[in-house]
Every structure is written in structure tokens, then in C-alpha cells.
């Protein structure tokens, strides 16, 4: 009888044999091939643009050869010098950088105070109507971020920028430039858009804090203040730092608000500076700026990942004891509710109503000048570029159709790609491919949207090898939009597939089903729900998207968002407001319905 000693490692067949065997296995299992294709395609769409923009930053562009004293196409430090050290570097880079920092810092503070306070109110206190408040206070996040800036202009615009003045000015109250344009309005409007973000993150963390932890500190004799300082704040640190870093990252890449509120006062931030450089066709400078934005974005996300990992040990596990003990507000319950209402009013009702009223009055918000012309008129005298109400003519409908088509296709591609990434990762037949896939599909998360668009422009503006120039095509818009939303969809794809596991597919395999049957009859039908959410969430966020598309659209590929910004450029405030209202209504309705139907929370779709 075989006596078994805990043996030497079993003999391995020679390498060539193992390889042959492995190839045979791969021939029957398309997972690895699929993974490889995804790696190559995503690698090209994600990595190549970044490489292209980096190389553009260091290569002399056509037209600059005279100034730089070098031949076009040579390696050069000219653009670095121009952006960082030349006489105009203050204008090109340092002032915008400073402005970006000011705006980011201000927005973060604003959002933290408002979002943190409201988070505490709706999660830890017995404020009346907290369920409703919790839902109502995230609505600003469902509106396009620059809705608020248009509302702001409608109220505070002065005669400096041309076009129609705002409500206050029309009433004879002079609004100084610092109130109408620049840092302060940008901070307030961005803060109003981003505080729900803080509310969600901090609220989740607050909900997880174990009441017993707080109680035991109290029992040990710690006064309330000490408890907050020594227990609550440290426990909240991961969520807070995440919120701060992510808001900073968003502000860095946001375009609409600083464009609308900054440009009339020559207040530039990095994103609008980048846009301006591209519009001026100074590709080299734009590439340097894009690279800087990418670097800052990467640093921020890495810092966040690092912090989160470091704070992992703080995470209070279980939640068994985490029963909801709410602070009793006693006499201030109703005042607190009123405060919540005020925040809702200021962040939702006031902007939306302002926009709405502005579109039905000739003099802003003066109901005696009521008119539906801006929506319905056949002819609008004075508006040369858009001589009719928004619902007339073909512009709005064409843009809406473009939005629907482009964003819709991008979302479908994105969701399917995300699920396939999840499939390859979970299937585990090709661990190394799966690893790369995970990394590559996450990469766009590091890159602020506007910089990524600039990078794609670098790559696709001209024909390269077999790939023709794609600038101005719908195809490019679809690709870029799909790629930028990929991190979210691949994450949720991986989550969905991990939860499913690979056994259902294996069972089908045992039952004799070939690969396409397994995909068509088992995997996709089971993941139907995940697929729908995976399409709808990018769709909603893509519909509101401006930063990514603003550089890529041309006359033929106008989207709703770019149409609205174009109307702002013309100074047709009412028309621009009307279009933004249409976007806001669509995106809010869709978000609301999705949450209702799929019971998914907005938190999972924070990719806005």
C-alpha cells in the first residue's frame, strides 16, 4: 500500500509542453482572448491619449518654429518655459493656478460646512422630516453643475459683460464686479452643487459610527466636547478627507461654472485656461496645462487612496451595536428643520425658480413682462444667432437627439464593457490580464475630464497610422464619454460579477452550453439589473456633462449642454437658461425614477 510522505513538489512537465497545453485550453476558452482585446482597446483609448498629450507638450508644434528658433517636430522645452517661466506665464499658468486653489479651497470649505452640518442633521438628530430632508438635500447634485451659475447671473449680472443685465441691476441696484463675477460667485455656486457630495460621504460615515463608542466615552467621564474631538472627529477623518480630496478633484476639472462666471471678469482657472489655449490653437501650451491638470488629479486620487487605506483600521465594523441613537434637538427641532428648508430653498428652489421665471419674463423676474416667447415664439427679434423660442426651429431637437444618441450609445458601451471587465476578472482564467484590465479601466478616474478631453484631442485630431482623424465625429464623442465613465461601470461590473461568482456559468458549461450561449442565456440575463443601472447612471451623468464634451463638439455634433453654453456666449441668457432647465428636468426625472425603480442609491452613481 502506498505510504504517503509529505512529498517533494510534484514533477512538472517541461515548459514547452505546459505552454502547448495552455494554448489548447485557451483555444476553448475565449475569456483570455476577450481580456486581451479589452486590454489593448482600453489601453489605446486610455493610455495613448495621455502619451500623446505628454509628447505634444515637449514637441515643437507647427507655427511656433519662428518664436522658438527650432524646427517643428523637434523635442523642446519651449512650452514648459512659456507656461512656467516666460513673461506671460503669470497669465497663462500662475494666476489660473492660484485662482484654482482659491476656488477649490473656498468650495471645499463651503461644501464641508453646509454638507457636514446637513449630514449631521439628517443622520444623527431627530429633526422633523429627516427622511424627506435627506432626499431633498441631494437634489442639487442631480442638476448640471453650472445651473447655479446661470441662476447667479440672472440675479447678479451687471452691464460689464454685455447682453441683458440681471434682476438686481434691472431694479436699479448696482452689483459690483466682485459680486457678479469671479471667485466669490464661483465658490458659492460650486459649493451649492457639491455639498450633497459631502453630505452623502459624511452621512454614510456618521451612520456607521457606533453609538456605544460614544456612550462608553461619556460613561468614562469625557465631556461632550472631548467626545467630539477625541472620538467622533477621528472616526470621521477618512470620510472627511475623501470628501475634501474628491471635491478638490472635481473642482479642478470643472469647466462650466468658471467659464460662465469667471470669463467676463477675466478670472481664469486652469480648466478655462486650458480651454482658451485650445481655442487659440496653442496646442503646445494646452498640452502642458493638460499635463499639469492630469498630474494634480493623479496626486489627489492617490492621496485619497492612501489616506483611505491608512484609515481603514478606523472603520468601525459590524454596526450590530450601531443602533440609531439620535440627538434630541428639543426646542431647536423646528428651527433646525427650518434651516434645512432654507438650505433646500437656496440650493434648489431659488436657482430653479429663478431660471424658470427668467425664461418667461422679458425683464428678469418682472412678472409684468410675462411672455412665453423664449420658449415658443416663431421669431425672436434681436437674437440673430437663435432667432426663435427654444422649442421652435431645429437646434434644441437636434441637440437633444445628439445627446440622446451619443450619451446613450456611450452608456451602453460603457456598461457592457464594465460587465465584460468584471467577467474577465472574476473568471480568473487569466490572472495577469485581469490585473491589467482592472488598472487600465480605473485609470480615467485619475484624470479630470477636461484634461482627458484635451488628451484625446491630441491623439485623434490627426490621422495616426490606420486610425483616421476623428475630430468632429460623433464617434470620438462616444468613445471619450464611454472611457471617462468606465471606472464606475467597471467597478460595478466587477462587483456584480464577483457577487454572482463563476459557478452559474460553470454549471451551464457542464450542461454543454458553448460560450455564446452561456453569455446570452446565463450571464447577461442574470446581470440584467446591473446592466440597466450600468447604463442609466452614466447616461444621467453624461447628459449633464460639459467639461468633457465642450472641446470635442463641432457644429454638427452639438449637444444640449454645449448648446446652452453657446447661448451663454451669445448673451442670450433666457434661451441658455431654458435649455439648462430642460437638461435639469430630464436628468432629475431620470435619477428619481432610477432610484425609485432600482432602489439604487445616488451614492453609487457619484460619477457625476
Amino acid at each position, binding site marked *: 500500500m502506498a505510504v504517503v510522505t509529505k512529498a517533494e513538489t510534484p514533477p512538472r512537465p517541461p515548459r514547452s509542453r*505546459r505552454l502547448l497545453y495552455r494554448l489548447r485550453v485557451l483555444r476553448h476558452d475565449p475569456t483570455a482572448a476577450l481580456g486581451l482585446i479589452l486590454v489593448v482597446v482600453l489601453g489605446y483609448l486610455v493610455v495613448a491619449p495621455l502619451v500623446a498629450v505628454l509628447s505634444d507638450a515637449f514637441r515643437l508644434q507647427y507655427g511656433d518654429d519662428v518664436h522658438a528658433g527650432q524646427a517643428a517636430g523637434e523635442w523642446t522645452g519651449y512650452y514648459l518655459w512659456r507656461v512656467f517661466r516666460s513673461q506671460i506665464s503669470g497669465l497663462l499658468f500662475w494666476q489660473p493656478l492660484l485662482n484654482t486653489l482659491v476656488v477649490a479651497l473656498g468650495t471645499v470649505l463651503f461644501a464641508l460646512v453646509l454638507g457636514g452640518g446637513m449630514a449631521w442633521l439628517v443622520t444623527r438628530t431627530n429633526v422633523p422630516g429627516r427622511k424627506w430632508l435627506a432626499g431633498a438635500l441631494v437634489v442639487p447634485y442631480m442638476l448640471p453643475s453650472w445651473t447655479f451659475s446661470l441662476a447667479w447671473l440672472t440675479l447678479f449680472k451687471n452691464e460689464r459683460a454685455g447682453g441683458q443685465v440681471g434682476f438686481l441691476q434691472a431694479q436699479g441696484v448696482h452689483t459690483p464686479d466682485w459680486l457678479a463675477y469671479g471667485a466669490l460667485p464661483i465658490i458659492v455656486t460650486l459649493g451649492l452643487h457639491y455639498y450633497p457630495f459631502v453630505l452623502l460621504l459624511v452621512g454614510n460615515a456618521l451612520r456607521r459610527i457606533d453609538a456605544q463608542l460614544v456612550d462608553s466615552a461619556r460613561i468614562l467621564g469625557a465631556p461632550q466636547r472631548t467626545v467630539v474631538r477625541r472620538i467622533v472627529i477621528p472616526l470621521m477623518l477618512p470620510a472627511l478627507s475623501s470628501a475634501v480630496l474628491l471635491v478638490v478633484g472635481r473642482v479642478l476639472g470643472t469647466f462650466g461654472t468658471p467659464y460662465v462666471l469667471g470669463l467676463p471678469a477675466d478670472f481664469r482657472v486652469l480648466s478655462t485656461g486650458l480651454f482658451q489655449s485650445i481655442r487659440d490653437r496653442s496646442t503646445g501650451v494646452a498640452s502642458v496645462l493638460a499635463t499639469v491638470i492630469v498630474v494634480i488629479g493623479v496626486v489627489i486620487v492617490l492621496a485619497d487612496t492612501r489616506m483611505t487605506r491608512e484609515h481603514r483600521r478606523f472603520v468601525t465594523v459590524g454596526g450590530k451595536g450601531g443602533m440609531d441613537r439620535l440627538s434630541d434637538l428639543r426646542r431647536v427641532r423646528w428651527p433646525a428643520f427650518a434651516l434645512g428648508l432654507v438650505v433646500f430653498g437656496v440650493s434648489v428652489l431659488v436657482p430653479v425658480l429663478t431660471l424658470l421665471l427668467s425664461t418667461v419674463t422679458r425683464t428678469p423676474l418682472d412678472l409684468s413682462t410675462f411672455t412665453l416667447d423664449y420658449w415658443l415664439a416663431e421669431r425672436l427679434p434681436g437674437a440673430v444667432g437663435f432667432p426663435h423660442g427654444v422649442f421652435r426651429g431645429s437646434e434644441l431637437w437636434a441637440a437633444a437627439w445628439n445627446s440622446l444618441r451619443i450619451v446613450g450609445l456611450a452608456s451602453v458601451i460603457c456598461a457592457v464593457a464594465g460587465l465584460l471587465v468584471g467577467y474577465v476578472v472574476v473568471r480568473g482564467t487569466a490572472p495577469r490580464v485581469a490585473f491589467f484590465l482592472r488598472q487600465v479601466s480605473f485609470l480615467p478616474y485619475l484624470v479630470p475630464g477636461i484634461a482627458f478631453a484635451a488628451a484625446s484631442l491630441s491623439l485623434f485630431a490627426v490621422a495616426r497610422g490606420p486610425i483616421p482623424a476623428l475630430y468632429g465625429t460623433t464617434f470620438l464623442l462616444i468613445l471619450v464619454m464611454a472611457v471617462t465613465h468606465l471606472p464606475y461601470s467597471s467597478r460595478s461590473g466587477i462587483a456584480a460579477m464577483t457577487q454572482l461568482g463563476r459557478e452559474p456559468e460553470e454549471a451551464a458549461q457542464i450542461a*454543454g*452550453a458553448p460560450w455564446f450561449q452561456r453569455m446570452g442565456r446565463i450571464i447577461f440575463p442574470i446581470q440584467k439589473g446591473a446592466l440597466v443601472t450600468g447604463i442609466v447612471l452614466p447616461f444621467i451623468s453624461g447628459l449633464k456633462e460639459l467639461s468633457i464634451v465642450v472641446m470635442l463638439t463641432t457644429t454638427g455634433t452639438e449637444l444640449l449642454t454645449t448648446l446652452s453654453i453657446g447661448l451663454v456666449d451669445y448673451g442670450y441668457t433666457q434661451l441658455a437658461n431654458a435649455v439648462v432647465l430642460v437638461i435639469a428636468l430630464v436628468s432629475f426625472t431620470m435619477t428619481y425614477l432610477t432610484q425609485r425603480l432600482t432602489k439604487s442609491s445616488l451614492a453609487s452613481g457619484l460619477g457625476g
Partner: protein
Amino acid sequence: MPAITLTGVAKSYGGGEHAVRNLDLTVPDGAFMCLLGPSGCGKTTTLRMIAGLEQPTAGTIAVGDRVLDSVERGLYVPPEKRGMGLVFQNYALWPHLSVRDNVEFGLRMRKVPAVERRARAEAALKMVHVDAAMDRYPSQLSGGQQQRVALARMLAVNPSVLLLDEPLSNLDARLRLEMRAELKRIHEESGATIVFVTHDQLEALTMATDVAVMNEGELQQVAAPMDMYDRPANRFVAEFVGSPPMAIVDVGPSPAGLAGSLLRFAESRVPGSLEGAQCSPTAVGIRPEALRLGPPPGATWCEEAVVEAVLPAGSSWTVRLRVLDTELYAVSYTPVEAAPGDVVTCWTERMHLFGADGARLSAWDGAASPAKGAVA
């Protein structure tokens, strides 16, 4: 019906520790083989390799003359072409299909016409007593029902090789008995070759025609159930098979104490039998059922013992004894009169001797041939 042959099969996940090492195993044609072993010993891995869901890092797997995997020769047949049946440890029912559609799926893939498909699915579900839940979805079934649907899903296609990964673990005791009988009947009727993974040695001993015991990825012994019980190949099998487990006493450097007493007795009974062995015994094992209380019937080994506890268990009594400063368990199928603290005589007619490497050297079985004793 085919025999399954595994030759030199090894498997390591991602180049790490081996989950299965050097497995040489033949499941004879039409056998009902139980794979038995502690958790994590590689049973599921072995089964998945046979099914083709996992690829060996070395070795050959064949069914009949058909080579399914051969790393050395670069041959591979994908699972969907192997035509086997597999029941997963966690059922793996398809949540979006009704019970009926789950069971019909395999037939659909084999292009069986709809009418026949329906009939066969219903018959399979009837066999496992879930035909009443035919139109429900898996999430609306209890764990045991899901397990039975998984069985039916496999049985419906009537494969000649059935692989079952702990298919009865979630059933209650009565249903389990019933399903065991059912599986045995299916085996006899279809003549399929069955590999059945289980934790439960009682299941293995009662159902199997052959039992294979694994530990840490290595095959320990393959034998018919009672052979396995009577002649365990080594210490691991001796301790793993049988409940309560065999007591094994190590022989220390000085042959005093219980082990010494047993060893001297064995040597005096069967002189010379131990000298032939490659190495001298270092441990002696006694099965609790073989340890008896009361006056010894003749020339058997016996010692004084102190009763420490008596634990009645319905049809049997387990007695904890202290013999020569060593704790031993005895199982009796007649009522035990002794009380804790009593001094009794214990005796046995059967003992197993183990060598330094753990292999069983021999056994003394006084009952087999009362006059002389016998060496097996």
C-alpha cells in the same frame, strides 16, 4: 460505462502551494467512489479537474480511452464537451430561470425536442421530490430543495459520469437517508460511474463501492469501505475513518506505560512478525469498539482501568477510561454498569501497529483466529 483514470495529476493555484499533488487514482467502471477527507484537502479541486473546470499543472485525466487532459501531451477537452454531470457544493442554480427551466437547460443544449424535454425534466424533479415547486424560482426554495433541484438538473441529462460535491450536506437527516437510497438506486439502474465528495464518513461507508481518502492534496488510501475500516493504510486514515476515532498511543523512548504494554503483548503473540517489518512500530492503535470492559475471555491483552466518565448515547455507551496514565475511550453496545471512580478490567483482541513514517505495519486480530492470533 467508463472508468476514470487520473495519472500523476497535480494542481497548484497560481503557482503557489499544491492543492493536489501527484494523484494516481482509478475510479473503476461503474463504481460509486467516495472522496473523503478533511476540509481543504483538495476534494473539490479534484472533482473540478475531472469536470474540466480546473486545469491540472501536471498529469493526465482520461475517461475510458478518451484522454480529457494531458499536460504532457497537450490535450484538452473543454467541460461543455465532456458530457458529465456535476452538482456544485453551493448548487449554482440559475436565479433567472424557473426550476423547470433550470432542469431543462442541459436537454435544450443537447437539442432534445420540447415534448421529451418536458417529460424528462418532470421525471427528474419527481425523483427528487420537488415536482411541486416546478414553476418557482430558485430564490423561492429552501436550501435543501435547491440542492435537490441541482441533483435533478444533473440527472435529467442522464450522463455516464456523475460528479457530486457534497450533494446531501444541506438536507435534514430523514431526507438525507432517502436521497442516499435514491442515489444508490440511480447508480444501480444507470450503471453510471459516480464520484461523490463528502465530509461525512458514514455516508462514504454506507454508499460507496470504493472509498478514497485524501489529506493535504495527497491520496492516502483507496479501498472498499470495510477494508478501509479494518485495514487503514496509515495513521491518518486510521484516525480519520471511524467514529469515534481510533485511539493511537505513541511508544515513547522507554517502553513503559500503555503503549509498551500493548507492544510487548503484540510481540509475544506473534513472534517474528514485527521483525520483518521495515521499521519497528512506534505507535499502537485501538478502535473504541474493540476495547471491552469486564473479565477477558482468554489470552487477550488486558489491563486495569479507572472509569472517569460514562456517556450514554442512546444505543451505545461511551466510557472514558484511564489506563496506565493514558486516556482511552471505549464504546459499548450493552449497558455499562460501572460508575466513575470504579476500577475495572479492560481488554481487547484487536490492535494496529504503526511505523515511524505513519504507515500501518500490521495488526493483531485475536478474534480472527482465537488460538494463535493473526497478523493482517
